[in-house]
């Protein structure tokens, strides 16, 4: 790899970014409503349906789709495949932002946002949620530490904060240069910790629903849910990298990085294949395939998740032609990403059928606006950061052509 990551310095306010800003504003309004009128004011949550869109998408899917961060770190830094380096930083940035927004999503969803620190003091080791919360908290810190060198690289020696913040120049400068000098030597500690913490909470996220055997549809309720969550998170890591890199490079008019992305998806064949085998094997062993053709909302959601989200893209990836075509590869990876997203929503929302109340749940407008607003903010900040920090290393397309 001859080129290095560099800030893009392209025009920032494109029409797409304006759309993002509008969505963000709508989300902010809905969020204000949540903190004025309560969760019940903006959502359709109830006694029977205490968790909905926010947990399914903002938290569970957010965590799963940030898996590119630890899977690329594993490949490039632990197994030593350094030629994947160009995708490590974008994946890391996605993880940093993804987890930050998981926490913001949680602040909206939990009733007592100001009490979010309490699990640090009051421990319940029986609670799966406690384990998830602890891991996410530590991992978020690890992610910030891993990202610090990228900031240091750009601003070390030229910290120049505007206006009254200028007083902090010296302090920030010394933090950055310290980070630059020390972190490089001990970064391995954090890189391994990041992978370990990810494996822990990705799987525990799957254990969350094990506490409700009478409420989760048998197609999803299995003792191996934690294993399924872990393998699917690992399997979605590289497709997510392909998905976001392709989106970012084409919207920012960069080179497609196919040289790095194509071999990545060859690994995905094995990872996704393992997940598919576990998922189908589990269905066969527990005999739940009898439900498959019942035609209810649950069983249909399961079929879509499996066929469009796992089997079809897996078959696509088998073909060399697909892996070499930027477009087809993007399509296959988008399906895998969509499949894992649907799986999380299915486990936390669709499969959840409380036995007493036949409460059907569909997210309220307010819930949707907040979720959409959070995703828009995430994309907005991503775009802002890659124009100012050395994250992407693909050369501009005109140059490479």
């Amino acid at each position: 790899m001859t080129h290095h990551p560099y800030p893009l310095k392209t025009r920032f306010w494109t029409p797409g970014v304006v759309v993002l800003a509008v969505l963000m504003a709508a989300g902010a309004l809905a969020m204000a409503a949540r903190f004025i009128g309560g969760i019940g004011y903006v959502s359709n949550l109830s006694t029977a349906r205490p968790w909905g869109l926010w947990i399914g998408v903002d938290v569970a899917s957010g965590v799963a789709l940030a898996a590119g961060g630890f899977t690329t770190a594993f490949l490039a830094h632990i197994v030593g495949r350094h030629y994947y380096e160009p995708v490590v930083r974008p994946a890391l940035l996605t993880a940093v932002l993804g987890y930050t927004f998981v926490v913001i999503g949680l602040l909206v969803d939990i009733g007592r946002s100001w009490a979010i620190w309490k699990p640090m003091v009051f421990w319940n080791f029986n609670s799966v949620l406690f384990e998830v919360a602890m891991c996410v908290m530590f991992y978020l810190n690890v992610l910030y530490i891993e990202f610090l060198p990228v900031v240091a690289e750009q601003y070390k020696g030229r910290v120049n904060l505007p206006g009254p913040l200028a007083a902090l120049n010296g302090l920030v400068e010394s933090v950055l240069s310290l980070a630059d000098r020390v972190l490089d030597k001990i970064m391995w500690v954090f890189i391994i910790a990041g992978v370990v913490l990810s494996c822990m909470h990705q799987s525990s996220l799957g254990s969350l629903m094990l506490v409700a055997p009478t409420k989760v549809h048998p197609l999803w309720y299995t003792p191996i849910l934690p294993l399924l969550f872990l393998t699917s998170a690992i399997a979605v890591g590289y497709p997510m990298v392909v998905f976001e890199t392709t989106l970012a490079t084409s919207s920012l008019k960069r080179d497609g990085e196919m040289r790095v992305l194509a071999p990545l998806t060859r690994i995905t064949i094995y990872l996704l294949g393992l997940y598919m085998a576990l998922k189908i094997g589990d269905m066969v062993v527990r005999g739940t395939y009898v439900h498959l053709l019942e035609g209810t909302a649950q069983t249909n959601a399961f079929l879509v998740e499996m066929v469009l989200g796992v089997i079809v893209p897996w078959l696509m990836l088998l073909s060399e032609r697909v892996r070499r075509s930027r477009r087809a590869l993007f399509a296959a990876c988008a399906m895998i990403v969509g499949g894992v997203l649907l799986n999380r929503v299915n486990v936390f929302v669709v499969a959840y059928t409380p036995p007493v109340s036949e409460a059907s749940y569909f997210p309220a407008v307010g819930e949707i606006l907040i979720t959409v607003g959070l995703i828009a903010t995430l994309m907005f900040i991503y775009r802002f950061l890659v124009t100012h920090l050395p994250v992407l290393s693909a050369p501009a397309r005109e140059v490479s052509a």
Partner: protein
Amino acid sequence: MKLTRRGFFKITGAAGAAATVSRAYAAKASPAPEDPFGCLVDLTRCIGCRKCEDACNRVNDLPPPARSFEDPTVLNRPRRPDEKAFTVVNRYFPGQRDASNQLVPTFVKIQCMHCQEPACASACIVGALTKKENGAVHYDVTRCIGCRYCMVACPFEIPAYEYHDPITPRVMKCTFCFERISEAGGLPGCAEICPTEAITFGRRKTLLAVAKKRIQDNPARYLQEIYGEKEVGGTSWMYITAVPFEKLGFIDVPDKPTPRLAETIQHSLFAYLWSPIVLYGLLGGIMWASRGNRPHPEDEEGDRR
């Protein structure tokens, strides 16, 4: 990014130790108290007067109901406990007729079952819900963060939530009148007021004996079943009946406590943090072994594809 040899051995050493410890790890004993209080509800005695709802409302300082406790038409629609009512009485017509060919109603009072191994308490991220020695599953609002995982976990769909309070919402459910029953001779509000003694308060073991005796003495009147004796590992509130429980809105739950599987997986994976430590050591080993640079697969000789 350098891994020193010393650092590496330190990690793998710790991993070995953790693996040994984990083998010695034994499963945690059941959290259920030995001899808690309980309530036995005899459905054949309940007349649906809703005095228990009224008493509950007063004892717990709950807001006044939309329709008065004397209004019998409230019974026309089945209800669930919510954040403003910790207990409700529902009416069922399971099909029996009396001498004048009128359908005979059965009334069922529902509230938190105060499970022996409560799923809500196992789930609660901060331990805000705990099973007390006296049998109550107690909620400590000062710990609660409002995640509502307890509501996801409860197999009886009991905990309700103050969804319209933006800043300090509470989880709301029957308290088993924790303060009252902690005092000698104290009774829950509902058990104290019930005019027909449909609700009997006492030690759970005694109540089970009472229930069995009533069934034995009057086999024509009762079914041979006590709901709550074994359900989800046993509950502090128990019911006996003349009509099959399925016809009275009781749900079919397993005998095994529902949080068992999650707890077992959680504890066997993370006891003494053995698995993360082993994984850390393993990854450290891989990292150390594969330090150095590798060429891009397409630059390698004899392309592997």
